[in-house]
């Protein structure tokens, strides 16, 4: 069925700048609605995506961005409305149909086979790579693919050995290699460091120059401003407006997103009067090796005090998370000792660290911080089920757990009617809020947080940051692992910079400049200690 609609999408939505009239959009959504029990995820969404544009989707946590993209990629069926591809109405029976139509998505949790090599992953599902393949042919094919999209891989490396940014690049090449004309990325830079981000930008711009369309979901305004041609703002599942990027200030976008003028960004926290007898987490010549015997953390000694925010910066994968996991008791040092408030905690179980009042926000919420298939109740109790009222030595009190979950849900500002529903139904940002609320309650002494801003919208990000400052101001210690230098500089009382598993320097507030830290992160330069 042909439908002439090229001009009709919506008068309120400007076409991309300099775009010739009469060319239909690559993909148009018309009046798409999607409902979940008790939730309107999308309501009457009409949008068009043109070849050669990068189109950003902006909206608060739970605004319906991921759901909309799941509809576009055939994972969900819309309850109302339809998709129009190249001027023809279509309906996708599943992701395969969407891929065949040239719509590819890079998910936040990559869909690669961990035990396969890069080359094998790239060849999977390719029509031109069927039958029996020689290794040589496979490798040559993979090299060609990688080159075509401007990446260089060791194509015989197994995917499970790759870092998150590397996996993301493989995923992009794989999606593009399967003939995607429309590339969807859901918060792609959440796992990337600054240099990897610019590499991703370059790849996306190349793709756009070749006539591809990109849909980019992001909470980072500067990213959207730098990259996007048009921006669509979603609020509570509805389209608020579509703008040409650059025609609107970031402040105006935020106002549209949250429905009122944004609150002032929080001022840098006042330095507190230092009490030398404050409790500490003390590391004494701590080292740690990973499973393959590589030294992940070189000998490090330092004291982290209650009442300070201790930032840990570095390029992703330089031992920050390993260090944080030791502070929270999830891993044990191979040598050296850990003391909390003077007590030797070396080798003690995780539960003992929780009991000492150390909360921990892991970097990967779905894999480590939550059991996605279980309800909010079970997840709220995840780290406190040993103590009353939720539990005891042998008992589990369902009612108390439910009450506790409601408390956390309220604190986290999540709209969730029924705590028994699986948390995988929560939006990514709301899952993160739940974890933050849970761990902040545990943290009567210290909160160790790895990349706590991942997936949070701007408002929630500010809330999270003020919550960290509030913890500090009430005498709790905060360890903040982040790749966002501005965040570290704004919040931290001291910043440790890690590179290659070594703490290169610990800089006090005011001692640290962006440039110093950048140099230290890349392994150059030296600090004051």
């Amino acid at each position: 069925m042909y439908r002439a609609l090229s001009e009709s999408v919506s008068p309120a939505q400007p076409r991309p700048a300099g775009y010739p009239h009469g060319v239909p959009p690559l993909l148009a959504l018309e009046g798409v609605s999607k409902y979940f029990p008790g939730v309107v995820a999308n309501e009457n969404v009409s949008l068009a995506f043109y070849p050669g544009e990068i189109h950003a989707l902006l909206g608060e946590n739970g605004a319906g961005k991921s759901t909309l993209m799941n509809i576009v990629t055939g994972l969900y069926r819309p309850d109302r409305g339809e998709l129009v591809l190249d001027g023809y109405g279509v309906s996708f029976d599943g992701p395969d149909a969407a891929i065949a139509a040239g719509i590819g998505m890079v998910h936040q949790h990559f869909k690669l086979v961990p035990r396969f090599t890069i080359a094998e992953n790239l060849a999977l599902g390719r029509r031109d790579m069927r039958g029996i393949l020689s290794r040589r042919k496979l490798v040559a094919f993979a090299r060609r693919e990688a080159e075509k999209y401007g990446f260089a891989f060791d194509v015989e490396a197994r995917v499970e050995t790759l870092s998150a940014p590397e996996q993301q690049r493989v995923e992009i090449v794989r999606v593009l290699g399967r003939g995607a004309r429309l590339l969807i990325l859901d918060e792609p830079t959440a796992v990337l460091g600054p240099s990897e981000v610019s590499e991703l930008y370059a790849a996306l711009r190349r793709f756009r120059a070749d006539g591809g369309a990109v849909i980019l979901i992001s909470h980072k305004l500067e990213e959207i401003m730098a990259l996007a041609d048009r921006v669509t703002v979603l609020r509570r599942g509805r389209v608020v407006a579509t703008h040409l990027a650059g025609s609107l200030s970031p402040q105006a976008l935020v106002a549209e997103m949250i429905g009122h003028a944004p609150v002032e960004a929080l001022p840098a926290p006042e330095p507190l009067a230092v009490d030398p007898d404050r409790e500490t987490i003390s590391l004494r010549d701590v080292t740690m090796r990973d499973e393959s015997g590589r030294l992940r953390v070189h000998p490090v000694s330092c004291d982290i005090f209650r009442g300070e925010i201790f930032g840990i910066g570095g390029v992703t994968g330089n031992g920050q998370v390993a260090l944080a996991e030791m502070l929270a008791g999830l891993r044990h040092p191979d040598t050296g000792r850990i003391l909390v408030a003077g007590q030797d905690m070396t080798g003690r179980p995780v539960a003992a660290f929780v009991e000492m009042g150390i909360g921990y926000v892991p970097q990967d919420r779905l894999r480590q911080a939550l059991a996605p298939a279980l309800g909010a109740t079970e997840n709220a109790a995840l780290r406190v089920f040993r103590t009353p009222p939720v539990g005891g030595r042998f008992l589990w009190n369902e009612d108390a757990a439910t009450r506790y979950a409601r408390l956390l849900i309220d604190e986290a500002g999540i709209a969730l009617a029924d705590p028994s529903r699986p948390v995988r139904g929560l939006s990514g940002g709301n899952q993160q809020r739940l974890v933050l609320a849970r761990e902040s309650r545990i943290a009567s002494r210290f909160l160790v947080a790895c990349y706590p801003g991942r997936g949070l919208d701007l408002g929630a990000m500010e809330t999270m940051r003020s919550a960290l400052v509030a913890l500090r101001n009430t005498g709790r210690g905060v360890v903040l692992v982040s790749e966002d230098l501005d965040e570290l500089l704004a919040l931290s009382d001291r910043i440790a910079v890690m590179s290659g598993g070594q703490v290169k320097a610990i800089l006090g507030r005011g001692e640290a400049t962006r440039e110093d830290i950048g140099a230290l992160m890349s392994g150059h330069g030296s600090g004051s200690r």
Partner: protein
Amino acid sequence: MRGEGRQMAVISFRRIVIARMIAIGIVFLLVAAGIYGLGLDPGMVGRLVVTSTFGTRFGLENLALYMTPLLLTGAAVWLALRAGLWNIGAEGQFLAGASAAAAIGLSGGANPALAGSPAAFMSSSLTLVLAMTASFLAGALWSALPAAGRAWLGVSEIITTLLMNFIALYMVYALVTGPWADKVTGAQMSSARIEVVLPAFAGAVHCGWPIALLAVAMLALLFRRSRFSYCLALCGSNPEAARYAGIDVGRHVFVTLLLSGGIAGIGGMIEVFGTVHRLQGGLANGYGYLGIVVALLARKSALALVPAALLMAIILNAGIVLQTVQVSASAVLAMTGLLVFAIAVADDYAAWSRSGRAS
């Protein structure tokens, strides 16, 4: 991914029940058609099955006797499933338990001279308690190797528990044709008669039946209010998160599979001392595998093991009736398979809603 809707996260009890009723109804129709195809009158066969199962004391007693081992093997499989583990080895653990119990029963040897005296009562009670303990330990031991492999080496328990079944089966064959062979009556593939018996409960039903029901009730209670059940759910759902929660996942996996094996082992003891009174080659009768079906039918509720076991018992009973009208014994297997298949489809359908809006 199916076209017409999406899978619901929480499926209401009512939807499941309705879908399953429809499934069972369809299976009945298919079986009736099959019987008709064999040249028999489905109405007559149906009446025969119903009257001989529910209409006679013998039929009802038989149901209880069938239910008893099914309840225990079902409970064993169900428990492991709570931690996301597939204990396919209930059959072997059942036999291991039966063998250990038989060893005690055969060695004890009731003294006919003391029959009826308090001393005899004491000694037979002691034998029963010993046999039950031994059967639990033997069942647990039989799953210890797969359990350890799964807990600390990540070896799939599905394969290892299954393999242990064959070892148990041939061990029983070796025992009942070798050292324990019945030399008195010369019965094939059978040990001598064990004189100590489980006390009767009602008529031909021994007290293994209430014991099995009690075991299920205890399991239900345990899973309502215990921290252990929460930990198991977490281990089964996301081991990585369980570790983060401070749970020793390996230990929980190990203990769960051991308990599971032990429960199946007790099933073997009860079968020997209550129903068969011998160790026999065909003792397990597929109860271990049917236990998987029972556990799947029961889904997340321990108490649902009771109706699930009852349904399986009715099918087994119906199979005997069918044999009396010259329908082959394998028809029962086919019926079971059909039923499991239909219910699996029904559960799946219950989980789908057309728009994703219904709840």
